[in-house]
């Protein structure tokens, strides 16, 4: 069993989800509530990873974080390391690749919060940021949980972007999907079979947990709980 690859994939998914939570909530807030006319462009940009081939996305990310790019040079001066073919580089790519899976459910649940509740909070003297955390977020828990779980599951299964940006360094960038690809290429079907089954199991468990949690989260509303 490819334990090293599995552990790496889980770590990558965990950190990706955490970063997407931190970036996705403000991004979704802006997309939902900004009065700017051109925000549809930002929406399209966020959704781009949904339709772009992973190799194309991976290629651009590779170029963008390469040692000759501004981002790559900045990273090198700050840490002395390089982003491509490193875990950190993989993390950057995963965050971008899974962005729509976090931001879209977040934004959809924000948009479903009754505007009058938000205005009621403002009129009670509560600032906009405090209203966000005291009214919008609690009422959006199901959407936020969905977005986080989708990001986690999506990162767990990514292949093309990882291969482009991370390559195949055991313990550093060799994720579980790449391990399965390797095993199959080497005609080691038993190993590929085991690892695939484990990934299938984890994916199903994660999704089952999402739907289970979502039901529990809705139960705070008495109309649904009784």
């Amino acid at each position: 069993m490819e334990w090293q690859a599995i552990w790496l994939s889980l770590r990558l998914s965990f950190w990706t989800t955490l970063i997407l939570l931190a970036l996705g909530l403000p991004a979704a807030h802006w997309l939902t509530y900004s009065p700017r006319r051109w925000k549809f462009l930002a929406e399209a940009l966020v959704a781009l990873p949904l339709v772009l081939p992973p190799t194309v996305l991976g290629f651009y990310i590779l170029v963008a974080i390469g040692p000759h790019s501004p981002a790559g040079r900045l990273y090198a001066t700050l840490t002395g390391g390089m982003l491509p073919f490193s875990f950190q580089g993989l993390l950057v790519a995963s965050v971008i690749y899974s962005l729509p899976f976090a931001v879209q459910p977040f934004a959809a649940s924000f948009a479903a919060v009754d505007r009058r509740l938000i205005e009621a909070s403002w009129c009670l003297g509560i600032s906009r940021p405090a209203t966000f955390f005291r009214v919008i977020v609690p009422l959006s828990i199901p959407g936020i949980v969905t977005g986080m779980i989708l990001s986690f599951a999506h990162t767990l299964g990514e292949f093309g972007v990882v291969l482009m940006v991370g390559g195949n360094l055991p313990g550093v960038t060799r994720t579980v999907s790449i391990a399965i690809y390797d095993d199959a290429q080497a005609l080691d079907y038993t190993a590929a079979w085991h690892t695939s089954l484990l990934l299938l199991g984890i994916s199903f468990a994660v999704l089952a947990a999402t739907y289970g949690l979502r039901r529990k989260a809705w139960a705070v509303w008495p109309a649904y709980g009784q």
Partner: protein
Amino acid sequence: MASELNVDIRKRHAGGPQIAAALRVPLGAHFVMVLFGPSGAGKTTVLRAIAGLDRPDAGIIRCGDEIWYDATTGVHMPPQKRRVGYLSQDYALFPHLTVRRNVAYGAPAAMPGDLLARFGLANLADRYPGQLSGGQLQRVALARALAAEPRLLLLDEPLSALDAPLRLRLRTDLRQLLESVEVPAILVTHDRTEALALGDSIAIMIGGRLRQAGPVESVFDSPADADVAEAVGVETISPARVISRSAGLMTVEIGPARLVAVDADDPGELRDQVFACIRAESVMIERAGSANLTSARNHLPARIALVVAEGPLERVVLDCGFKLTAMVTRQSADEMRLREGDQVVAVVKATAIRIVRR
């Protein structure tokens, strides 16, 4: 100097009528101003502009010494700083918080426990809004607004979300609550009885414009023009022509009929063409030929065109050459055996006819 809220704004929603309103509300204790008018007259827009939720296109909103909105300087104070308690039509309680935490939501200090008790919510404190009745929701919303210590309450159709019997009972409760909390209020409604029961003064809005303002009874009794008369529910509004005027009285002609009415307070504003406004409850019906001597100036021969039951009353539409609506009790209608097609005499006092400009 008594402080007052001074509003003079204009606003146009995309595709809607231009809304223009100028009103002054004294910020004394328990003063209730009713903003009254048909649906779509712009009442809610004015309320939202005062709350800071909508930004007017032009004008000024001043509360005491504070400028809340000024189009010329671009000042627009956010709703958080205005300290206004705003109750929307559906109360907008937070569904994820208990009654206690809803009420405490905007409270500056620790939970004002006596507020829950005062609003009869102590034993509901741990329930969620989804478990409450309409009347309880209203009390929670009012308590929540007051816990934030507002200096002005804005109530948008506070009773419209309730069903009819409850609405009747809560009207009285609401009046008592508003009197007890000592916070001035502006209340939007399109219901006449609500306006009469709850308001100290009234401002009538029609088609986006403020048409008349003053003490409730005086506006209801003496509408300034035909539109206001219609809005406040005057049943008969007929075009009339002035024939003669003398000694504070005037004679007007409506179709073939002639009526004597009391002249306007300011006779100069009336021309020959006017409207005569007559409330149905001031019209009496006599049987033809009974020839009682009464103090009423106007006795009009009429034919009963229509009789409609309205609860304990009967609405009788009379044809005296123009349509005149009378309201009589069921008993009177039975005793007099009023039937459609009968010939009767309509009796109207001169003081019951309000003449307004056309």
